């Protein structure tokens, strides 16, 4: 860590302080979300009807948002997408990917009484950076919790040589400003008004950087938002070569 600090000329002490504080914060958030998941996951029928239950569920949702934002800020600080970032693509089993994403979201979705559907080819293998993609999809699901009525669907399929992963919901769909923010994030136009004023800006920027890092035979990954899909609401779509 002291040697990373040397790269941040001018304020190495500040960098060290920030890095160790961030490490501490991650531990605290882990404990916080773990404890909430333990409480919510262990609730019986009587507990579920208690007026505090939905409030607890909301706390978990907010904690997860906090965790996502912290990870993204750290990742941006460490320059995702640059050669400086530890990018590690390997062949992965799609079934395992979906299972891990679903397990990350399980308690939150159950406590919010949201159903998760999954649609994916059982034996498919694709090459990507597993931790980055799990982080991106978990965050897309957390985001869909805000927009959905009662169902979220994660669908994976091969399409024209790309792996297409969709996170769809059955809510009223994304507002146009949000869809535009997705386009701005992909074009790298982070000074665009739509992008910066939207609260999802950081998440979309992060997702687009992660997608773009995935390259194979002169083709790059991408993300976009759209409305429609199988459930008729909003859809977050990532395509990986």
């Amino acid at each position, binding site marked *: 860590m002291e040697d990373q600090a040397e790269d941040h000329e001018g304020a190495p002490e500040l960098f060290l302080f920030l890095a160790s504080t961030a490490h501490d914060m991650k531990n605290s958030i882990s*404990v916080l979300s773990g404890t909430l998941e333990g409480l919510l996951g262990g609730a019986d029928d009587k507990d579920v009807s208690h007026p505090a239950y939905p409030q607890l569920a909301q706390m978990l949702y907010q904690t997860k948002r906090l965790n996502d934002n912290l990870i993204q800020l750290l990742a941006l600080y460490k320059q995702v997408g640059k050669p400086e970032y530890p990018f*590690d693509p390997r062949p992965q089993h799609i079934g*395992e990917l979906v299972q891990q994403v679903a397990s990350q979201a399980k308690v939150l979705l159950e406590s919010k009484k949201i159903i998760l559907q999954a649609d994916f080819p059982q034996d498919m*293998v694709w090459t990507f950076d597993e931790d980055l993609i799990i982080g991106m999809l978990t965050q897309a699901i957390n985001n869909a919790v805000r927009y959905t009525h009662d169902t979220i669907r994660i669908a994976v399929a091969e399409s024209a040589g790309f792996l297409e992963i969709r996170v769809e919901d059955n809510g009223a769909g994304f507002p146009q400003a949000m869809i535009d923010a997705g386009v701005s994030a992909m074009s790298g136009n982070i000074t665009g008004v739509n992008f910066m004023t939207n609260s999802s800006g950081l998440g979309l920027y992060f997702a687009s950087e992660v997608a773009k890092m995935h390259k194979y035979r002169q083709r790059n990954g991408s993300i976009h938002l759209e409305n429609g899909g199988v459930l008729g609401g909003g859809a977050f779509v990532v395509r990986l070569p």
Partner: protein
Amino acid sequence: MNSALTNALHPAAVAAAAANIDWTEKRYLIVDDFVGIRQLLRETLRNLGAKHFDQAASGGEAMTMLSKTHYDVVLCDFNLGDGKNGQQVLEECRIRNLLTPSSVFLMVSAEKSVESVMGAAEQQPDAYIIKPITEGVLLTRLNRVWQKKQIFREIDQAFVEKDYLRAAKLCDEQIAVHKLHAIDLLRMKATLLLKAGEPDKARAVYEQVLDDREYNWARTGLAKIRMNNGDHEAARQMFQGVIAENRFYIDAYDQLATAYQYMGKLEESCDVLEKAAKLSPNSVVRQRRLGLAALKLNNIPLAERAFRKCIAIGEYSIMKTVDAYFGLARICGQKNDAKEALQVLALAQREFTGELVQLRAKITEGLVYHESGDYRRARKTGDELEEMLNDDPERPDTPTCMELATLLFAVGVKDAPADLLCYVIRNNHDNMVLLDEVQDIFEKARMGEEGAELIKAARKEAADMMNKGVLLWKTGKLAEAVAWMRTAREALPNNMRILFNSAQILISHMQQNGYNRDLMDEANGVLMHVDRIAPGQQRFAQLIEQLALLMPRKDPPPIENFGFDEEGGE
């Protein structure tokens, strides 16, 4: 695409993945300095059905527990506050054999870790896992590691037995049925082929992998093969290409430094090592290498920093090395601080034991006296060492012999150091880099011309000994050839080519006259000695393969004609 609508949360999906392994009866160790995280992980494990778990709050505590109890699964945080970090716990476990092949070591970190892409340079855990850890992710990773261990079990076994070609064949069998692990298996196969002395086949594997996708390890592997073929400039460019793509791929830095070394560009080599040590500062091995490179270049401040860092991280590492103490003592001597130099030497002898350490401490002490201007004490140390050489015919390893010769010349002795250097040459008569270094020592002692003559004579002596054995073999006098090579080995116990030819003649004898238990043991002993003093030689792997074919079995082995490694004239 045939896609079924399923619910990923369905217990059947989880059960199917976990079908072949029961995690509930395993013994777990949780290592984290944060009590909240330890409690959380305990809950997570309990929810998975686990019953037996211990916890440790520091690397030191973890080591104590790991040396007392066998754990099936270790969940270890990378960042453990003061003392050992997670990587050092892992290193020590591997070196002290505290983990069995079936144990799982998971490295936990708060963010995506740089260590995961460092390459072969550092010890790798079975998997990395990012906080917060949930049951589903933990179970998936455990099952995946387990499956991979099953796939690699026979391959690893053959690897341990140094039966590299069989291991490579096993890789092919597994690649055919395990698409998910094909890349890992190909990487292993290339490593095995290199170990078995088949660089052309290894190159084909790397090229096959790179044809599909750019992998740092495959590009680095190709470059290493180029480097070993003497194509240093091409290798240098390839290593630099890998670094431009991925600044964290430390293995490429270490290799680039080696390429520069072969090219005689010692300053560039040292610069690269300095950069690598900045990116990954906690490697004892790398700091040692940097210190030695800087010392050679007389870059005193850099060498001092590297040796001090090496000693500091070594405090908690199983890899700690006495070389750093001797290096630092030399630096102190050159800075005219004989007092600290002697303190460092005393410390080295407290921390490390063995006759060689005592001897090297004595030599370093003499050099320190000499370099700090205390010629009287330097002379006294030199006299004692000279006497020791006269009393004991045994000689230490090559670098120690060279340091001893340097000291003896410095204090004015002539014959003993010259003899010592001739001994070094006889045992390394075809190592051109070493010949230059020896010539250098003679030059510094103002014996350049005389040294050149001595080197020439020593080389001839070794070559003659070897050629006599080969001639006996060629004229069909196999028993005499075997006997002669025994004499040659006694005179030159560490000469690689004599050792290899010795083993080859023993094998040849058995190929013509049948298996013989004593000769088999002798050949095996010679090869094991070679592998100890210079591990990973191509010819070692080839001879081991031939020896394996001679082991008695029902079908007689085919008799083949093997080419000999003959020494040309001067």
